[in-house]
């Protein structure tokens, strides 16, 4: 998945638009910070989300991280492959490591996300700290 075409949040989630829906995962930076992912707590289909709500939960050996929903909407599907293969989040975070899909109720919320160049800048800023 071309990273240039994705949108990004400050919490290192990526978002891909698919019509009135979005696909959400975590970025390469996030999986690197987490270390080896051992378990992903996936949201149930139909679960209602508000922008900023913790939608899923990723566990590595030594840490736990919430995945926040970038939109207000409903979960339509979660990536069931992650149940048996949580390592996909490490191996292919932008592709097979996707976490959930959701419907979008307010398209304007997507405007609050960063595009790729802005995310790159953001990462540079973090590295500089």
């Amino acid at each position, binding site marked *: 998945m071309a990273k240039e075409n994705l949108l990004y949040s400050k919490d290192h989630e990526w978002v891909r638009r698919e019509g009135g829906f979005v696909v959400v995962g975590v970025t390469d930076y996030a999986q690197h910070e987490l270390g080896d992912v*051992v*378990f992903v707590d996936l949201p149930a289909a139909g679960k209602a989300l508000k922008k900023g709500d913790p939608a899923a939960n990723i566990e590595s050996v*030594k*840490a*736990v991280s919430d995945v926040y929903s970038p939109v207000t909407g409903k979960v339509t599907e979660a990536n069931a492959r992650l149940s048996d293969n949580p390592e996909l989040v490490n191996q292919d975070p932008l592709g097979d490591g996707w976490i959930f899909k959701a419907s979008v109720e307010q398209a304007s919320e997507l405007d609050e996300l960063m595009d790729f160049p802005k995310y790159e800048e953001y990462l540079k800023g973090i590295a500089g700290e």
Partner: protein
Amino acid sequence: MRYLPLTHAEREEMKRAIGIADVRELFTCIPGGSCFPPLDRLPRALSEPELTAAFREFGRRNAFAGHLSFLGAGATAHFIPEVVSYLSAKGEFVTPYTPYQPEVSQGSLQAIFEYQTMMAMLTGLDVANASLYDGATAAAEAALLSVRRSGRPRVLLAGALHPEYAAVVRTYVQNLPIELDVVAVDAGSGRVDAADLEAKLDERVAAVLFQSPNFLGVVEDGGTIAAAAHGRKAYAVQVVAEAMSLAYLRSPGEAGVDMAVGEAQSFGLPLGFGGPYLGFMAVREEFLRQMPGRLVGQTQDLDGKRGYVLTLSTREQHIKREKATSNICSNEAWCALRAGMYLAAMGRDGLARAARACHLNAAYFAAGASRLKGVRVVYARNFYNEVLIETRQGSAAELAAALKGKGILAGVPLSWFDPAQKNRLLLAFSELHDRAAIDRLLAAMGERA
């Protein structure tokens, strides 16, 4: 002083290295007025012989030795093989830290892995944790787990749950949005009242906690309770206060319950006036990630060798902090290790024989007591190692006091927990009792009653 190895010369050298003249200079960060208050109200230091004499004096002020005891109700005197005392006393088992550095802790880790396995086998469930504090707090943790996993706010407690266990569950939930309700005891059978259970089960109930064998000594029909709970998609949790029963009675897993929790003091731990004891929890696979407490898991090292580590730590407080499955950190690790030693030493058949003896001794007593005029055996069948009797004249406390005068601690009067139950006495039997001891008990009761 022998616990303080620094010599005067060494202290001087170290102070020079640090650049101070007086150790007190290291404490100037502490508000002056409260630093180094006089300690002359404290007793003077005792040498080892003086210390030993002081504790012998404490022991002399205890006067229970020599009494024949039938006390139970959550703690029971069982036979402890000498190898268990010998091996568990080794410094390599007593003095290590928690095995967070697994390369130098394989002894502790493998021993606990074996303990977890044996508890899973005994309970007939999928996985057991590395220990909780005791049976009462284990029951509380099971209630919390059930609420967490189901999202439902209500927990039913069987009326014949050990009163101290029920009290601890109440303490644990007092500030949480969890409701407790009690299911009545059917007086005729001494078991959970099926009609009351059915009436109280609804979609808001997360779990039913029942004890078996229960506080009246009665073995519950776990299968029926589990079926009722599952009918409403609630969990069935069996609480076991006498772990030895797991080696004689049908396992909680076989009965169909979801979790088994309780007290494993019976597996090689001394009575110790109440602690440290050993809380256990075993659950079906689906509850694994919600389980509190430490877990030891098998893995391999860089060279492909089998080894053991603490695992699934993300459930715990040091990672999830306020979102953890429990706040537990230190557990009863040494007690679990000792229990594993006991189970290994007794072995499959030794354990089965000890467990059977506990029941047969209780059965012998029940048969004898039923022939006494002054008492009634309340539940003459389907008990394990505890028998509940009712006095026909005078209170149970009076009977116990009279027998105490004859050197017999004849059990726990239920009035201690519920003043209304004036005539009931619960007696516990273990493999340490024999025919002569029980005959002596019956004779003393016969004289009195």
